[in-house]
């Protein structure tokens, strides 16, 4: 939505006048017929809301989805290869939470959810996934659209930037894999001790697990007919409660091009002159 025609020559807003207008408005009792009032709830920051407005979208309601999926006992005992129960629990918990988020968004009439906070925790006996975000829609649109609801952890600002360049989010693509660290036999251990060599069976196991998580994420994206996945967050590490078990998770926002082609933004380069006198700091050479 572009600014109204009369605004082009309006000049900067006088915030003092605006504040007085707001205070005077509050000094009167609220209007009886709230035609323009609509009980919205949103956890977006003011900057995000302004960015949304600049592309003609508005926030609707806070929506969320939660799902807990159990992991049977004994799953984390040392074994070989992938820990299927854990990978499956993670995928099912995420899918369950996403489904509820979708349903809530549709119920409030939103076209999609932005700014999703993803909380995914793996405990010894269950995987908990909670998704919380704000449902949004183009200003003034009503009724259901033919397109499926999208879900994304992009901030309102990133969503607006992406839409301005002709791309649109489709959903959260997620992949996870859990794997047992391979054991080293005593003989191999001794032989490897003094040499500088690669521990190939370890490498293979970690490598494969990492690739499996990424592959699942890609498959999820392809399933949404996406062209790409942006802002992929990859986490990996041993489980707190079972240090010999390692998890790899990857998730990002699946996107596709909706315009005929990518629209360039031509950013303006700026040089902030904010630095005080700064002495050379040798620690800046370090990473």
């Amino acid at each position, binding site marked *: *939505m*572009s*600014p109204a025609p009369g605004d082009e020559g309006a000049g900067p*807003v006088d*915030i*003092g006048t*605006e*504040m*007085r*207008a*707001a*205070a*005077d*408005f*509050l000094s*009167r009792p*609220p209007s009886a017929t709230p035609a*323009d*009032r609509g*009980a*919205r*709830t*949103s*956890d977006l920051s*003011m*900057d995000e*809301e*302004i960015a949304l*407005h*600049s*592309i*003609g979208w508005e926030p609707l309601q*806070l929506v*969320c989805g*939660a*799902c*807990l*999926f*159990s992991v*049977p*006992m*004994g799953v984390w005992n040392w074994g070989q290869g992938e820990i299927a129960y854990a990978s*499956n629990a993670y995928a099912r*918990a995420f899918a*369950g939470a996403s489904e509820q988020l979708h349903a809530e968004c549709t119920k409030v009439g939103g076209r999609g959810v932005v700014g999703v906070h993803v909380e995914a925790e793996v405990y*010894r*006996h*269950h995987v908990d996934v*909670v998704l919380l975000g704000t449902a949004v829609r183009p*200003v003034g649109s009503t009724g259901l659209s033919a397109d499926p609801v999208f879900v994304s952890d992009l901030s309102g600002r990133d969503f607006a*930037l992406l839409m*301005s360049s002709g791309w649109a989010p489709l959903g959260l693509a997620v992949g996870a894999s859990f794997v047992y660290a391979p054991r080293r036999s005593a003989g191999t251990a001794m032989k490897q001790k003094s040499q500088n060599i690669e521990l190939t069976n370890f490498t293979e196991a970690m490598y494969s697990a990492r690739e499996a998580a990424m592959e699942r994420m890609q498959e999820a994206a392809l399933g949404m007919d996406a062209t790409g996945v942006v802002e992929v967050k990859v986490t990996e590490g041993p489980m707190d409660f079972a240090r010999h078990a390692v998890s790899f998770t990857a998730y990002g926002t699946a996107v596709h091009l909706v315009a005929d082609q990518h629209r360039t933004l*031509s*950013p*303006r*380069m*700026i*040089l*902030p002159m904010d*630095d005080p006198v700064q002495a050379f700091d040798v620690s800046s050479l370090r990473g």
Partner: protein
Amino acid sequence: MADGLGQLPADDGQVPDLPEAAERRFSEGAFTSGLTVPDFAACLQMGLEPVGYVQGFCVMQWQWYGMGSPFGTFGSPFSGGTRGYTESWQCPHGYVSAEHRGWGQNYEQSWIEDAWHQGFDGAYSRMLEEASAAGAHGVVGVTDTSQPLGDLGVLEFRVQGTAVKVAGAAPPADGRPWTTYLAGQRLAKSIEAGLAPVSIAATVASVRVWAYCVTEYLTEGSSGSWGYQSAAAEIDQMSKAHMAVRRIAREQIRGRLDHDSLHGASMITSERELGQGDAELQCILRGNRVRRFKAFDPLPAPRPTVRLL
């Protein structure tokens, strides 16, 4: 009892007078303010004159049945004392024993929610009183906290902010200052976008999970004698509890907004596991209740830039 919107309680003599020190503080000339320098500058630019730093406290006894935890404690599902959400589950196994929990329930702990509101509203209304006494139109940069005081089994609620007067404007409709969590440039942007602050809004939802056998087994990972394969499933009772606690918080706030909107909300949920699959969930939802005061006028698309430094 006060609702979450800072309605001053009925004059039944329960609200104490302002402390003498507070009266002295406001009658003297220099103002105090919790604003940072940039926020202070932005306030002056908006024509907001800081009047003083206002605060309200309320200390609630937070011990129920002798357990000094900030979450309260167990309420029996048989006490029938809750209004609101409740959902129950029956054991599918047909196995009866003293240890086998054949019946379970999720229920809303409305007594905890009521007590929290009493504490919060008490602190909030006292802050408003201080602001009114100082002749303020509104309070900006509000922060609210609730924390246990040592080991004493009490919970202290604090609400504080900077009271301001709007130069050249009329005082609010019912003599009650408007309040907002925002301050400085964030408040200025909200005003520019056409949203006037009405009040801060905060609520708590508390749900107790009284697990039945299936929930207990799934949460503990044990399969009992019911087979290993059946132990990988969605923990329905827990998922429902998590959804319920967040839904209740949102419904409570929406019920009080009266067609105004909630912006810049923050939802914080915490869980306390009580063993054997039991748990207690608490969700605090806060935000700024705002009302549109001028027609929607979108700002032009911001110019993207890249910093060279």
